[in-house]
């Protein structure tokens, strides 16, 4: 078994264990509707996690992920519904801004954490300007897309598989994906091969913005309205999802399939704790405990692997 597959085993096991726990506590969850309800909020989180993963693949960290997804949600719930052309233009411009961030971070050799932290205030500010009070509404086609009922398997699972597949093709199989990961692994090698490091980093950021935009839109499609603070949790959730899924903070080691599974696991962890009747006061702590447990498991696996 390749080390990458072995890495994937831990998140898969964690997800399976949580699912088993949920089904045991609440057997009615093991149904078409039950699964959809449990997991549909995981779809935007999975998309945001993929976005974060692309940034982490080039050894950076995006602390504006939550603010940006909130901003996109606000644009989606207002402009994209009322003036689709303008809405699309705004979203396209934000992709360009993300690519520009990648360029600036590279050229000025700035820490991405600082730049994106700064940008998070910009995004939140813009979101508040667009939607000072919670409101807006989802474009009908988006609402329809997010509530579609495919036969046999609920939307949440179909969407998750689709996201994982597309991201896997893009990041693990395509030339661009290899270049992005190579940049995280050894930037000098990329430069020496004659590939533009700036273009590669900009592409990683732009691609991340596209996935983050999809996350914001999916979120509005599910909740039908938006709020400037709707997705602030996503910053840390997306980072946790990447790590949970077998990714690393540095070195370009990422796994798109793992990241999606990580996002599903994090979403399920919340429901599981509710089913256990753990008071919301303790839930964040308990969620952290689950995270530590899974990471400890991964460490154990790494040790076993090293001993072989």
């Amino acid at each position, binding site marked *: 078994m*390749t*080390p*990458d597959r072995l890495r994937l085993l831990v998140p898969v096991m964690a997800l399976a264990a949580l699912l088993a726990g949920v089904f045991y506590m609440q057997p009615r969850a093991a149904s078409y509707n039950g699964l959809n309800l449990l997991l549909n909020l995981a779809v935007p989180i999975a998309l945001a996690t993929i976005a974060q993963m692309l940034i982490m693949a080039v050894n950076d960290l995006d602390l504006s992920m939550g603010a940006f997804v909130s901003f996109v949600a606000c644009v989606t719930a207002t402009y994209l519904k009322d003036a689709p052309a303008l809405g699309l233009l705004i979203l396209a411009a934000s992709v360009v801004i993300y690519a520009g961030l990648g360029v600036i971070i590279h050229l000025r050799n700035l820490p991405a954490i600082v730049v994106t932290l700064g940008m998070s205030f910009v995004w939140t500010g813009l979101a508040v300007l667009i939607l000072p009070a919670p409101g807006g509404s989802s474009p009908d086609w988006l609402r329809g897309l997010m509530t579609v009922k495919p036969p046999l398997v609920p939307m949440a699972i179909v969407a998750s598989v689709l996201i994982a597949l597309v991201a896997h093709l893009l990041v693990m*199989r395509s*030339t661009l994906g*290899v*270049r992005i*990961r*190579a940049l*995280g*692994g*050894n930037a*000098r*090698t*990329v*430069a*020496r*091969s*004659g*590939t533009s490091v700036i273009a590669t980093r900009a592409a990683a950021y732009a691609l991340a913005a596209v996935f983050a935009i999809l996350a914001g839109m999916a979120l509005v499609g599910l909740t039908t309205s938006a709020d400037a603070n709707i997705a602030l949790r996503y910053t840390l959730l997306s980072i946790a999802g990447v790590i949970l899924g077998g990714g690393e903070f540095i*070195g*370009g*080691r990422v796994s798109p399939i793992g990241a999606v599974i990580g996002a599903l696991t994090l979403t399920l962890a919340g429901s599981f704790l509710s089913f256990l009747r753990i008071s919301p006061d303790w839930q964040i702590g308990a969620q952290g405990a689950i995270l530590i447990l899974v990471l400890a498991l991964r460490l154990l696996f790494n040790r076993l692997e090293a001993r072989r």
Partner: protein
Amino acid sequence: MQDPVLQVHDIAVRFGEVTALDGVSLTIAPGECIGLVGHNGAGKSTLISVLNGSLTPQRGTVGGQPYDVARARALGVRCVFQELSLCPNLTITENTRIAHRDLPVLGWRKLARRIVRDSLDAIFPGHGIDARAQVGELSIAQRQMVEIAMAFSSPAAPPRLVILDEPTSSLDAGLAAQLLAHVKRFIAQDGAVILVSHILDEILSTATRIVVMKDARIVAERPAGEFTQASLVQAMGSSARELTARRAQITGDDVLSLSLPHGLPFHARKGEIVGLAGLGGHGQTRMLLALHEAHAPQWWPAATPAVTFVAGDRRLNGTFDLWSILKNMTAAALPDLARYGLIRSGEETAQAATWKNRIAIRTPDLQNPILSLSGGNQQKVLFARALATRAPVVLMDDPMRGVDIGTKQEVYRIIRDEADRGRTFVWYSTEMEEMGLCDRVYVFREGAIVAELVGDEISEHAILAASFKGAA
């Protein structure tokens, strides 16, 4: 005469106050292997950076037109660097994709896998490396093999000039011989090779022409046949000093001991220099790390550490790249330089200055960043860091990789001095002559100690015999 592959004329490169190249001209013709030799800091690495396009000289012309990395690759110039430069998180196939930009967009995996496998088969028959393996999983020797194979391979136009910077430093004798044989085949087919090596035998046996660099200039350039080992060393300007004679057998108390799962147990006495020999990657580094783990404090730094470590892979676990030379040098001895937990900067500067003089680190100012030094001088800083501590045992993990002869001699002398004062050295090295400096040598094979040689028993023949015993 055929058109040259690449021509550089009168180039000069300066880094701040350091002149790295000064009026260097070189013409590389097809079908020749240029042996490039010189001290550390003589300008070899800079010349290579210019040739592969990653450095633009302040003066002079390269290749006759604007020259950069893309242009160099278009001309068929490939480079294998001294420090390994693959992406450890990618598979070999994916690394090939990065190296070869001219692979097709679709179906590149299959093609990349094929060309790297073919090239590996051609250069290192029986290599046993799977192109789908992740580079991070490979040993240093295997990574070097992959990098060399990648440089000699191509999806379209074959490479015309391959620059090999210390290619054999991580390879054992058998693999090195395979590589040098391939270099000869390659130049027979009108390829050109620039071979940089500190192993003069390799240069003398493989190169057709030898270029000697000293102090940023080319000081000698003649057909290889006109050089001998002695005349080469003379041209480089370092005099091959006699090795310090070994002392009588040391009988003291053991300061270190470790029993390994297989083979003979390890022990080292006070004031002894213990060598770890054998082919590269046969468990020597692992034992050094085990020794370090067993004796270094795990939780809280001890005032007097029991062991200190000199890393061979200085990029990976040696230098603090962003720090000055001074801070790099004193990093291990800070408890001695501090009072009430605060560093006394006067003492720190004094200690660093002492060591700068003692092991002759060539820099105008210790406040310069560590990366302003040449590789050999960086390695000296790591030695100074280890020796400046009060640790009675120094573990050395092939610390002389890619260090020039002059520097080596200086360091050998210091090691001998320190040993005479009662320090114990455990020294893993892939170079035979360094084993000749040890009081006692353990030979490793397949993760176990298979032989112990004491004093006069230590010889190249005895070490080779033990390393290859039982092998086909």
